[in-house]
């Protein structure tokens, strides 16, 4: 069965969130890694860029859902609904990372188990990152202990997010059936 093409709303949502998350990772790295902090400086502007990107991640899904609700609802359903074949995917993940084999998808025909797990992890991580960012931004309204706790979780989740995104980019772009490979082979 040929893969169902992504809807316009799905593509828009994906690339807008991808751009905002890229901005978040870049500005977050500059604020966290001392060598980058020294190389770039400009703390106010880096922080402002991080906040703007966080605002975009928070608002864009809501805006797109409001404008194209049927498509967004369909996307959410196809990512949330797990079938037996999705669970079976986890017994052979190397088929995704290392081979050129066809990966089975469920009746919906859109996403495999790995993609569904990725969607759940990345969305919950982004929500928690936004929530933990609140006491870090409005530090004067929270205790120092809570701000410190929020920051620790923020850092750990950000690192986990980067690892997840690295896998996502590899599979989407560089893997045997990633975008580049398919373009090179004319598929």
């Amino acid at each position: 069965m040929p893969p169902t093409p992504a809807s316009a709303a799905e593509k828009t949502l994906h690339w807008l969130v991808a751009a905002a998350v890229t901005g978040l990772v870049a500005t977050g790295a500059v604020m966290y890694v001392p060598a980058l902090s020294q190389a770039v400086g400009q703390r106010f502007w880096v922080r402002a860029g991080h906040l703007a990107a966080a605002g975009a991640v928070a608002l864009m899904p809501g805006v797109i859902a409001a404008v194209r609700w049927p498509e967004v609802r369909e996307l959410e359903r196809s990512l949330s609904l797990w079938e037996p074949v999705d669970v079976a995917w986890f017994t052979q993940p190397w088929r995704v990372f290392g081979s050129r084999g066809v990966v089975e998808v469920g009746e919906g025909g859109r996403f495999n188990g790995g993609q569904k797990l990725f969607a759940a992890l990345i969305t919950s991580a982004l929500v928690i990152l936004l929530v933990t960012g609140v006491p870090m931004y409005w530090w004067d309204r929270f205790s120092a202990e809570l701000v410190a706790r929020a920051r620790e979780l923020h850092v750990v989740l950000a690192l986990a997010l980067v690892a997840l995104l690295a896998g996502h980019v590899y599979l989407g772009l560089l893997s045997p059936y990633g975008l580049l490979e398919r373009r090179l082979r004319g598929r």
Partner: protein
Amino acid sequence: MISPSYVGRRLFLSGVAAGLGLIAFGGGLPAVLRSWLESPLGDLSPSDGFHFYSVTGSIPGWDRRRWRLVVDGLVESPLTMGFDDLVARRSVTVRTDFHCVTGWSVAGVRWDGLALRDLLQAAGPKEPATAVRFESADGAYVDYLDMTTARAEGVIVATHLNGAPLTAERGAPARLVVPFFYGYKGVKWLHRVTVVQATGTGYWEARGYAADARIRG
């Protein structure tokens, strides 16, 4: 064999609930996770615990022979002190935890320097002075303390951190240390101390930070 169900929604909600629970009720990260964060990722995080913040793109350079700390404004006797003079007069050691508003802290930091109240006493503030303005060497970072806070115990112009002269990243040759305030009040690369009639708006206060920088317990 499982039947089709909306597992993704449950995973998402569970992840969000776990995160919120950790923030609200958790005792911080588990020790294992913190250890992992601090060791394999050691190159990403600073070895002495301090992160580096600057609002410009460079660190002000300085020359030991030519650098001067200026104390001026509403004072009887304006002062100009060289680095060696400042070091020779350092008389106060402050041990405190350093807290940044963004949530990171460094425990048990030792600062050595000259008490700000002694510096002000030497210059002799005069009426109608009620505040002190601090300026970094590049002029980009400015902050204020009211006179009572400036004269409080533990407020120093530090030249040494943990027994060693300040590094450029930590504010060399001298920086302000206010142990009961968050770190953004500690002007690095301190160049000028000016006694003024009234307190003003510091760099970060002008950009949304609260006027009260006292560390919240």
